[in-house]
């Protein structure tokens, strides 16, 4: 799979990314778990790329491997023309790319004050001269996410889930990043709070010109926030297209059933919705099926699907799909 997706305005390019974890099978035997298997895509400057899929499909691993929180097994990450391959480029990259985590409860150190949590990236990268400047920067960051100076000296446990997620976002913004990996940043929040945080992501993008990789399993939220959406299944990317395109006209059988399974918050539409209910569970990535990973649950699977992984081809302008039977369906 060697698709050239890169265009001039691309901020981040991922080529043939693989991340295998060694699973201990006992007595010096290990087996690779292919969490991410040969994934290529690019993100344009200023856009939001949504990454969706079920748990265990490798979407979080993609986010973490891009930031080199896991060392990639194979493949390259090119950021703004610079390949990330040595400690120096990694340090530069980490000043420009940060992450917001899913769980606002476990991702903040309970022993640190909010001001120390938010200033930690500044400390690591030596981004201030003197205490006063550090303090000013912390207050500036807190006001950016709708918190104020009286919050700075408190501890994380004193805040609600939505406020904690704001602290996590302030920390991610500390180094003035250009690119943020958002790993399910709103799934732990209540509906009314979720909308506040989503709007904040929108505003910050407008004000600071940020680029997001937005990982989530709530497809309505992803559609709302993303320009383009990529769908993953069992470590592979199966479809990539603009958000509207993928909702109106999904091509991969997995994307079709995934989208039809979303319960619509509208009783008349929900009653009329013809769901394509998949049978069975997602297979274990340790025993992934041969060929197309989705073939065991696919309505259209044929013999050819078991033989080889379908290539990730551009079937329409900007619409990529990996399916052998795409021409026939």
């Amino acid at each position, binding site marked *: 799979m060697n698709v050239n997706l890169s265009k001039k305005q691309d901020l981040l390019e991922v080529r043939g990314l693989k991340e295998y974890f060694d699973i201990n099978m006992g007595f010096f035997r290990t087996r690779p778990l292919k969490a991410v298997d040969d994934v290529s895509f690019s993100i344009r400057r200023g856009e939001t790329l949504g990454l969706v899929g*079920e*748990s265990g499909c490798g979407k979080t691993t993609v986010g973490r491997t891009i930031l080199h929180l896991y060392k990639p097994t194979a493949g390259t990450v090119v950021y703004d023309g610079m390949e990330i391959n040595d400690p120096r480029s990694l340090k530069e990259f980490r000043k420009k790319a940060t992450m917001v985590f899913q769980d606002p409860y476990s991702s903040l150190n309970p022993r640190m004050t909010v001001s120390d949590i938010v200033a930690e990236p500044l400390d690591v990268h030596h981004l201030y001269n003197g205490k006063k400047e550090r303090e000013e920067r912390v207050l500036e960051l807190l006001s950016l996410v709708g918190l104020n100076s009286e919050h700075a000296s408190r501890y994380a446990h004193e805040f*609600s889930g*939505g*406020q904690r997620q704001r602290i996590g976002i302030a920390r991610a913004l500390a180094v003035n990043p250009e690119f943020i990996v958002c790993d399910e940043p709103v799934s732990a929040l*209540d*509906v*009314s*709070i*979720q*909308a*506040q945080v*989503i*709007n904040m992501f*929108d505003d910050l993008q407008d004000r600071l010109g940020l680029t997001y990789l937005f990982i989530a*399993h709530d*497809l*309505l*939220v992803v*559609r*709302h926030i993303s320009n383009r959406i990529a769908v993953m299944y069992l470590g592979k990317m199966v479809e990539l297209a603009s958000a509207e395109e993928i909702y109106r006209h999904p091509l991969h059988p997995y994307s079709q*059933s*995934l989208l*039809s*399974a*979303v*319960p*619509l*918050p*509208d*009783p*008349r*539409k*929900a*009653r009329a*919705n013809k*769901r394509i*209910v*998949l*049978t*069975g*569970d*997602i297979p274990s990535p340790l025993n992934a099926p041969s060929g197309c990973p989705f073939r065991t649950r696919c309505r259209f699977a044929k013999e050819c699907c078991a033989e080889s992984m379908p290539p990730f081809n551009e079937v329409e302008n900007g619409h990529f799909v990996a399916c052998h039977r795409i021409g026939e369906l």
Partner: protein
Amino acid sequence: MALLEVKDLRTSFFTDAGEVKAVDGVSFELDRGRVLGIVGESGSGKSVTAYSIMQILAPTGKIVGGSIRFDGQELIGADENHMRRVRGNRISIIFQDPMTSLNPTYTIGHQLMEAILLHTGRNKSEARDRALEMLTLVNVNEPHKRLKQYPFELSGGMRQRVMIAMALACEPDILIADEPTTALDVTIQAQILELMQDLQKKLGMAIIMITHDLGVVAQMCDEVIVMYAGAVCERGTADEIFYTPAHEYTKGLMRSIPRDENNGQRLRPITGTPIDLLNMPRGCPFAPRCENAMKVCLTQRPGIMDLGGSHTSACWMNYKDTAAACAAPEGDKA
């Protein structure tokens, strides 16, 4: 007469910090064969309402008032023997997290048969047959093999099916589902919801569906009650709640979820943070977050107003005279 009539239910938790009124005056009826949705955010009292009906509250919790009549009989104050005959037999419950609600040290078969042996006159081999029948009913593949397996050997969706099989084994009149699909992926969620709808039609039971997901409510429920801070703020058919919401909180919820109508537009979230039950405001509990709050909202709690049919709402905005009298919007929402 309705199958279940809950009237002015009040449940409090007595903590070191004081009395927390988790459920504060909840009333509803449920008829046979209907699906009632209870929606609200965390801490709104939706789960505590369900636990109060089953009387499985934590030791600090106590029902302090109201009445729960099930099939004509009062459950509050009923002796433990009576409750034992109701629980798991005529009213059963499925919990949110299928991993922690199954016992990891017993096989699936043992746990399924336990309820059957306890509540029906079946002997062991009949109970085993019934357990197999139930597993087949909920579309678990290879049911014979599953009976001998332990919970950790099954996937999340499979465990939730086992929970449903267990809850339905005694053909209850009411099934309470407490966030049954929150821990599951969308495609598995679709399977489980479809299964619940099928079984509901087949067995004709009533379902109380507790969830915060408005999509699940739209798909499953005939009637909906919306809860905020332990009280019901609006009640109506699913269509009334979704298309003509009357309470400001319900309206806010509808505006804050991404859907087709507001695609590409900015969401309009409800401002502020969820309420602290230890520090309840004097007036309407939602007033501090309400964008249309008036003076009266801050001082007096609105009563429940009938809007025709089964649609009710507890919001001062629905009282036309009051709204006119207190037209000056309250600027300072302190």
